[in-house]
């Protein structure tokens, strides 16, 4: 099979060779069904989520009354908030698809396949995987969109409004496929450069304490800005207030994101020193290995927590104001914003759960040899499972706790009032968070289901 691969340095030739080799490549993968199915499943989830989010958001653009613009603005905000964690899911899916491919490509390369052939094969494979996943995802969207349609706004179910115009669906499928191909191309360089395909472990990012200072500064400035909102209001009206809030919002989120990995690393280092059990020690060490990746995996929740706190407080304030003399549609708006906040928070937890599930599956497959080794040494299977779960959950607590804390600091006086005036709203928000945490935890645990399969066929990984 190496024979045709050696020649053909020209691009067209490379593509031809790749097409020639593709069936061989595809057949070899049959034995590796799980590793093939997982990326397809993740692209499926990504596509379905994307279509659901887009479908939900565009539903509001079918309205054209007085308050339509307000709803549409809010829908766009929610859309942006959801696109961020969705991007993480997409990146995880792409990474998973690329992972297992590395070794096989490296061996192809050793057999003498040209860079062009390897590149073409990779891109083809990624695109094919994504295409199948995206098509399946569209079916999944078809099955789940009616659930989204159950959401009530202005007292009416969204119903059929959540269906994307049919013409969009092929565009989404195409877009997902293209993105997967491009990210495969981008991720390929390392393999092509080192034919041996040895993934050199990246040194853990060295987040610096200076960042903590900067972040504290940002938070202080933000606090000041929020306290003087009325001043901005006098100067520039509502637009200025919204602008300042959005700016503070973004800056604080960036700051949280900048110091998160650093704090995570500090904490993991302390935990590694003091851990009393093997799973705790391992969890801390796994986090230390790459704090940035550990953070990135769950960082989508930062924005969620922020929005959750802002939303809960805002709603508490709003519902305190006397709504009796408000026009009916404005009362609906208040009510609908609370629905929207909850849906957004729930949606981003769902996405973080997906990205954690995909990442953990990839990591488990990646570390198959470690699982086999530990099993041979007689280490109970629960040890590794507990360690992974702990590593994910401790990062999640830090992300959501940290950003919720920042939001609370920004809104300090208001939060106190909200808890007194609207305990129900606060409890609802807390409940949504609890469910979200449970979801992520479940996703982290899911990957341990792969372990028995790995242990049953140890010769594949060693």
């Amino acid at each position, binding site marked *: 099979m190496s024979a045709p691969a050696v020649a053909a340095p020209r691009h067209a030739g490379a593509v031809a060779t790749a097409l020639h080799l593709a069936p061989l490549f595809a057949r070899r993968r049959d034995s590796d069904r799980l590793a093939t199915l997982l990326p397809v499943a993740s692209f499926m989830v990504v596509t379905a989520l994307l279509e659901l989010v887009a479908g939900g958001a565009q539903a509001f653009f079918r309205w054209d009354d007085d308050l339509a613009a307000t709803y549409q603005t809010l829908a766009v905000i929610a859309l942006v908030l959801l696109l961020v964690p969705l991007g993480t899911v997409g990146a995880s899916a792409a990474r998973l698809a690329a992972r297992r491919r590395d070794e096989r490509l490296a061996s192809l390369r050793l057999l003498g396949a040209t860079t062009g052939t390897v590149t073409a094969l990779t891109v083809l494979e990624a695109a094919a995987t994504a295409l199948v996943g995206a098509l399946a995802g569209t079916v999944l969207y078809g099955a789940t969109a009616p659930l989204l349609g159950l959401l009530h706004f202005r007292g009416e179910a969204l119903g059929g409004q959540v269906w994307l115009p049919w013409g969009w669906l092929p565009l989404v499928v195409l877009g997902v496929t293209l993105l997967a191909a491009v990210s495969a191309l981008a991720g390929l360089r390392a393999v092509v450069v080192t034919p041996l395909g040895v993934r050199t*472990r990246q040194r853990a990012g060295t987040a610096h304490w200076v960042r903590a200072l900067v972040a504290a500064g940002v938070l202080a400035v933000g606090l000041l800005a929020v306290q003087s909102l009325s001043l901005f209001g006098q100067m520039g009206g509502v637009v200025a207030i919204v602008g300042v809030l959005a700016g503070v919002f973004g800056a604080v989120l960036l700051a949280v994101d900048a110091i998160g990995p650093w704090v995570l690393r500090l904490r993991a280092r302390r935990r590694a020193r003091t*851990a*009393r*059990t*093997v799973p705790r*020690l*391992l969890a801390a*060490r*796994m986090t*230390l*290995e790459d704090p940035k990746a550990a953070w990135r995996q769950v960082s989508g929740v930062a924005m969620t927590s922020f929005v959750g706190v802002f939303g809960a407080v805002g709603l508490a304030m709003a519902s305190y104001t006397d709504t009796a003399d408000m026009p009916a549609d404005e009362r609906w708006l208040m009510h609908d914003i609370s629905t929207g906040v909850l849906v957004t928070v729930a949606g981003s937890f769902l996405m973080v759960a997906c990205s954690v599930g995909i990442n953990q599956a990839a990591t488990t497959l990646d570390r198959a*040899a*470690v699982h086999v*080794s*530990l*099993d*041979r*040494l*007689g*280490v*109970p299977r629960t*040890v590794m499972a507990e360690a992974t779960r702990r590593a994910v959950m401790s990062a999640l607590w830090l992300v959501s706790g940290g950003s919720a804390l920042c939001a609370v600091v920004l809104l300090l006086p208001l939060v106190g009032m909200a808890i007194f005036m609207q305990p129900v709203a606060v409890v609802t928000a807390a409940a949504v968070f609890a469910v979200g945490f449970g979801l992520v935890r479940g996703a982290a645990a899911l990957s341990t289901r792969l372990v028995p399969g790995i242990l049953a066929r140890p010769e594949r990984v*060693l």
Partner: protein
Amino acid sequence: MTSLLSARGLTMHYPGSTSPALDSVDLDIVPGTSVAVMGASGSGKTTLLHCLAGILRPTTGSVMLQAGSGPVDVAAMDDAARARLRREELGFVFQQGLLLGELTALENVAVARMLAGVPRAQAEAEAQQWLAHLGLTGLEQRRLGELSGGQAQRVAIARAQVTGARLIFADEPTGALDSATSVEVLDLLLAAVATGRTLVVVTHDADVARRCGRTVVLRDGHVVSDTAAPAATAATGTETAR
């Protein structure tokens, strides 16, 4: 002397393969000795080692082990019991990959004791002693990826002994090492034998086998020869390269 390990009629049929990887193998291993298992690639060495160590359950046959709690048939135990046995009573040194890359050298060894319920401080103290004993003083805090192949094998040897395991299984422990380092690693394994432990080592290396007390040769899943090596080179473990 009674055998530490006694295999009878060991047969291993991997699902989907036509001929057995092991075919009615009988083997007795006396405590305090070193046994080399040799044979061509695919002759069943690793399969035999895994059956003896309770990693694989043979299709038929028995493996009686004089465990701390009395004699047990490893081949008849369930997965959990075999895992426990491996964890608590057996030591392993394989070609590579039995250690955790994220952990330091010290932690890798200490973990074996922590899993047995020993408090971390004590586990690390014991691990520290073993590392020092194996010449790794000063490298305790290195992560595994920062050690050379030979150093990593020493850590594995420390891990295999820290639990007090009396029986150590090694599958090509020197397979990935240069010849000088191989000699050092084998010295350490044979030093363990000199303190009363028992070693079963699978190897392709005739030099390694020559230094063991006994050599078992496999071909197509059968034992085709079983010979004692000259005692002088076998027992002391102090001989250096050729």
